[in-house]
């Protein structure tokens, strides 16, 4: 009786193991062979930055696409990127490398979208910016708390100077001044760099002790000072007079941010007409219009919207199904 029972138990467990292992294997094989957009595709030979228009990431294919003009159909065929930006002579494409731990490949591309240089950094791709000339590039990746450690996020922002080839893997070490005094804290995090036209000054977000600041940085002098509190993901206008940013206006984690524009001359800010919470580094489509991604409607991952920079007007849906907008002239 006892032996029979033991045999029965063993048989049950063996059958269950076979079924469950078979199910797992079957699903893995199915996932392996089903149709999915490639993660590593390079740009088609015909797709470059020569055509002016709105460039963006198409979530359906994971590749960069172009909207030549209002009303015209989109053109696909760009490289696979999770985040994309372009200006001057260069484009920056952030691509998450497959597998664990999370790593990001930052690809520097020329105007034909061929690779000029590539850097691999740990973390999940997040923000990408190129200076107007194309000489300076910056990207931010989220470092993921591993399962063993706590699951907090921290950011790591890199700056690459193509004139010297010098790469600053993390700008965390930059001497920072807050309220006129040198600031030291173990938890400073930078993200969302935007460059000025002089290829030296930059603006970024720094967060520490639960507060965020807008910092103005100087690459040559290697210093940074905090200008204002509660400014995230700054984006400098093409004429370098205003900064668009997301401001935390609510403690509700479902809708914490609103888009604002800060006038650098008078340091006055005003909200934009967009009433939804925007979690994106907005891009200036021209000196009076901003583009940004919002969670998509109708099952789409995200849509690109635009809104006037002076606080008037209404948001307008520009690209259904798109993210990482950048205007290329």
């Amino acid at each position, binding site marked *: 009786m006892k032996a029979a029972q033991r045999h029965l*138990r063993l048989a*049950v*467990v063996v059958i*269950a*193991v076979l079924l*469950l*292992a078979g*199910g*797992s294997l079957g*699903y*893995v094989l199915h*996932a*392996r062979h089903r149709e*999915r957009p490639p*993660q590593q595709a390079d740009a088609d030979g015909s797709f470059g930055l020569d055509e002016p228009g709105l460039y963006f990431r198409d979530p359906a294919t994971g590749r960069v696409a172009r909207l030549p003009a209002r009303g015209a159909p989109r053109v696909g065929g760009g490289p696979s990127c*999770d985040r994309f930006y372009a200006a001057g002579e260069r484009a920056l494409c952030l691509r*998450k490398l*497959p*597998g*664990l*731990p*999370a*790593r990001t490949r930052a690809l520097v591309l020329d105007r034909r979208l061929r690779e000029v240089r590539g850097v691999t950094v*740990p*973390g*999940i*791709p997040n923000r990408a910016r190129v200076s107007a000339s194309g000489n300076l590039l910056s990207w931010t990746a*989220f*470092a*993921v*708390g*591993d*399962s*063993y*450690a*706590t*699951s*907090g*996020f921290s950011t*790591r922002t890199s700056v690459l100077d193509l004139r010297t080839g010098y790469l600053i893997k993390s700008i965390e070490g930059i001497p920072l001044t807050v309220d006129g005094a040198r600031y*030291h*804290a*173990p*938890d400073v995090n930078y993200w969302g760099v935007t460059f000025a036209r002089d290829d030296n000054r930059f603006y970024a977000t720094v967060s520490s*002790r639960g507060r965020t600041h807008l910092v103005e940085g100087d690459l040559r002098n290697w210093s940074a000072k905090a200008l204002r509190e509660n400014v995230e993901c700054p984006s400098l206008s093409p004429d370098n007079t205003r900064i668009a940013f997301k401001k935390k206006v609510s403690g509700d*984690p*479902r809708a*914490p941010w609103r888009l604002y524009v800060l006038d650098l001359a008078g340091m006055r800010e005003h909200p934009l007409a967009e009433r939804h919470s925007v*979690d994106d580094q907005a891009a200036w489509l021209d000196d009076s219009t901003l583009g940004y991604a919002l*969670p998509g409607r109708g099952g789409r*991952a*995200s849509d690109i919207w635009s809104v006037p920079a002076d606080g008037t007007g209404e948001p307008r849906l520009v690209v259904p199904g798109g993210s990482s907008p950048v205007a290329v002239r």
Partner: protein
Amino acid sequence: MYLATTGRTDAPPRTPGAGRRVPGTVLALGAVSLVTDVSSEMVTAVLPLYLVLGLGLSPLQFGFLDGMFNGATALVRLLGGRLADRGGRHKRVAGAGYLLSALSRLGLLLAGGATAGIAAALAADRLGKGIRTAPRDALISLSGPPETLGRSFGVHRAMDTTGALLGPLAAFAVLRATTDAYDAVFVVSFCTGLLGVLLLAVYVPPASETVRVPVTPRPRTAFRDPAFRRIFYATALLGAATIGDSFLYLLLQRGLDLPTALFPLLPLGPAAGYLLLAVPVGRIADRTGRRLPFLLGHAALLGAYALLFAPLAWPTAVAVLVLLGIFYAATDGVLMALAGPLLPARGRAGGLAVLQTGQALARLLGAAGFGAAWTLWGQRPALWTAALALAGALLAAWRVLPATVSEAS
């Protein structure tokens, strides 16, 4: 010296060889924990990637989702303990917890991109984890004679840690094979979780079979027992003087200027140490009494703090990780073995839940306090404070912990 004097008259005289066998229940529960930890650590490893990259959640939202249920688990744990004690339903309550966690993977899969669905799935997982812990530890402590509990818990924790180490590897393999199909990770994790539930159902006997649960009309609460009270206070005190592992790793990473890519690997050191030492330390605890290893474990942690004052180099960093491994091996299972026999069989799950919850909350407090001290005073003063606090807590615990542990009758 072989000290197994517990005053039990019904225990047969023990030969050293007979002491090597671990009760089948413990091995079965260890296997359940191993398989379940593979399942849960698989998901933990990919969840941030899935939520942020796959679904486009902002880190703030992720942190909110992740932290939302952490406080609730403590209460659920107490609930699980009480439910298990009523009528000796340890196995059923633990099984329900395991099943709930396994099903939560299916929830993640079905939720698609809906944040509410994902939150619900994560809540179910945490609920399952909270419910099952106390009944499971009670089952272990009820499965054998009290004098071998240290080793039993050592074996269980070693198997548990093995699963935790294998989980991320399994997730890595699945992501590799499928080029980042997160749904495949959830499916494999679900199947593995179900296997854990099945192992529990088939191989773990109910508590009433292992021990005859005495029919007392009203089980006295754990806090009535002065010895248990002392253990509880000492544990809470020591817990509040613990700064949290992530801070230790951060100090190491900063001190060594370690590349961030290597940062996630640091916790593997203590885990490996825990894995290797859990059984031997458990055996030692069985011989010397659990009080001394428990205190020495915290002394090892104090040693780790002290090492961090020295200029950091690779040997010191390795020593810190080893000491952290010793700390876990000498305190986690040993505490359960220390307190378990004090509690009457009918109130054991509830009592252990109270103890674990108290420790967890005290540690939370300690970590938060250290974080605040670091930002306010800087790294070194904060570390000094932590070291002094731990030394003080250790001295107090030395006096407070009962010297000889008598078995509850």
